[in-house]
């Protein structure tokens, strides 16, 4: 893969302070390469959205980043730590370098403003020298890019359908040509038909504009199809990371395997599926050791006591993948 664009190093995010703090993201390290789609999968409460908000410093209180670094590599510039930026620099960084499409993006548009106003607002804030005319032209171009006819510029959000609103949100995210786009469950509220159209379009745009995507969803079968690499989160940690096809064919962590077996197949032979017994852990009372061990069918001696380290499995010769499981202990990295 090409060079990295965003490196997350040992990020920790808590909700609350002191003893009562809930550790929502623990020790997460993840690298996003230029031009790739990185899928982030996990159930509700696994910390995937918190991770996304944490790395852009958008966490509302009581969310606190308690440690780690987020290194951003601008194109042809010196890398810097996003978490150490001053407020002023952060303001410039957001949207221009990293944009987010939020969960339930259909409701993130302001209902009392025309979409033209909302699209040009961003330009007004980030490129104040741009003329009114150029701003309008840029917004129109953006709408055309996401497949909405530019004459809908003067429509209010309620005059657009859910799918169109979602497209407007994607257009807004791309208007400053960011290097990284974070999509937090972008299509969960949409129908499957619309979902496929929008994702197909997003992939096409990515090829044209060359940005990288962090795609967060609970639908692993969608990720396998649309992303290059997948990281699976459970209980605030990344438990497995590998190329999409590798995870689909041969998931090493029992949780990844269980998650994959939770989606009934539409084609191929019909088989009995079991899902995963038990329910996702409560972040406030996380099990000791590997947080998946109470639900794990393959748990053995070290699982309840020692936390497995995420790393390339020593027993398998497979490049580019890492797993945090005692079944496949990590290589000692010197």
């Amino acid at each position, binding site marked *: 893969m090409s060079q990295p664009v965003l490196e997350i190093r040992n990020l920790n995010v808590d909700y609350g302070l002191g003893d009562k703090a809930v550790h929502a993201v623990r020790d997460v390290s993840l690298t996003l390469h230029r031009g790739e789609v990185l899928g982030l999968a996990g159930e509700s409460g696994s910390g995937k959205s918190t991770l996304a908000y944490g790395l852009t410093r958008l966490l509302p209180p009581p969310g606190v980043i308690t440690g780690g670094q987020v290194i951003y590599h601008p194109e042809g510039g010196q890398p810097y730590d996003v978490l150490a930026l001053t407020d002023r620099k952060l303001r410039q960084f957001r949207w221009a370098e990293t944009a987010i499409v939020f969960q339930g993006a259909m409701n993130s548009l302001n209902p009392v403003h025309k979409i033209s106003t909302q699209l040009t607002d961003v330009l007004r804030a980030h490129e104040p020298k741009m003329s009114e005319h150029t701003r309008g032209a840029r917004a129109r171009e953006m709408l055309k890019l996401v497949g909405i006819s530019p004459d809908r510029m003067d429509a209010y959000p309620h005059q657009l359908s859910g799918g169109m609103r979602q497209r407007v949100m994607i257009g807004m995210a791309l208007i400053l040509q960011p290097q990284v786009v974070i999509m937090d469950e972008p299509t969960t509220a949409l129908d499957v038909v619309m979902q496929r159209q929008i994702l197909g379009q997003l992939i096409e745009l990515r090829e044209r504009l060359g940005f990288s995507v962090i795609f967060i969803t609970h639908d692993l079968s969608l990720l396998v199809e649309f992303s290059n690499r997948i990281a699976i989160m459970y209980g605030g940690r990344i438990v497995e990371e590998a190329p999409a096809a590798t995870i689909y064919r041969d998931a090493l962590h029992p949780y990844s395997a269980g998650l994959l077996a939770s989606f009934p197949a539409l084609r191929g032979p019909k088989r009995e599926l079991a899902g*995963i017994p038990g329910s996702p852990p409560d972040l406030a009372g996380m099990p000791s050791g590997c947080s998946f061990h109470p639900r794990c069918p393959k748990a053995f001696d070290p699982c309840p006591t020692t936390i497995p380290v995420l790393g390339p499995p020593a027993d398998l010769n497979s490049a580019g993948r890492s797993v945090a499981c005692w079944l496949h202990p990590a290589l000692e990295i010197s």
Partner: protein
Amino acid sequence: MTSTKAPSGEVVLEAVGLTKHFPVRRRLRQIFRKEHEAVHAVDDVNLTLRRGQVVALVGESGSGKSTVARLLAQLYPRTDGDIRLHGVSTRVKGGRPFREYAARVQMIFQDPFASLNPVHTIRYHLTRALKIHGNAENLDAALHDLLTRVSLTPPERYLDKFPHELSGGQRQRVAIARALGARPEALLADEPVSMLDVSIRLGVLNLLRDLKERLNLAILYITHDIASARYFADQTLVMYAGRMVEGGDSETVTQTPAHPYTKLLIDSAPDPDRLIADIDPLEEDRGNGEPPSLIRPPSGCRFHPRCPSAMPRCSTDLPVPLQIGDTPGHWAACWLYDSPEVAS
């Protein structure tokens, strides 16, 4: 429970030509107009629920699938058509008849976070269901029995908990236990797993299937996920814009879909076997666009404005259910399958 001894395959609930129009409030300038506008939420729906069988109703949001469930539960009065319970036409509106109906047909809602009262314990919820439907003699045994049935064991641990102390999957199991408290013959499950975490969805679906077999229930499973319909249901019906477009054996409908809309739905479902390299962003001829307005639905076939294989006839004539191939029971409401001799 004598009712469980009824033969499997016996018809419990039938909808015949079921129709529901919701009136639209008239604006001032329309007040003198003759015609009344209405949302055509459900038009001419036929379905049959049999004991020991699961029928899946698949469609996008807004296709009217939840309205069908609510009509069958008699929560809405119907505009036209008929609902037959064991062959007897029923129309109930509150009071004792509604309770008697509810004892036989129970509904499970989508959101277990909203369908349980947060200020009452599990014991209260289940006791109420048992008492209302007169199954409360030997209450403790009945409560234990219900919780054991939905695999919340040991029952003592759950009885005195409040809903917020349970996870989503456990709450949905309580909701199912509550429905079973009425000792129903038919369950109407309106997206019972779509609000649950992915890893526990199958557990709840497997539980429903197990209950169906043990209690000989008739289940209507409403979903937008056609893959889960294939997994869970014996029969699958596909709805589009308030009308049934295709129906038949689940395996046949999902493997050899006939109606262009069903094909679109199946092509759009996430498929891990199709990897990123194979996505062709230019495939635009498969019926893009959006579902139509139901206030003025398209004439003829409601899918014709999006349909890649629409013919002139589709915009004028309403398609009738036509038999597909030689698979018994597989039908589609599409003129593509009209044989010339029938047309003449």
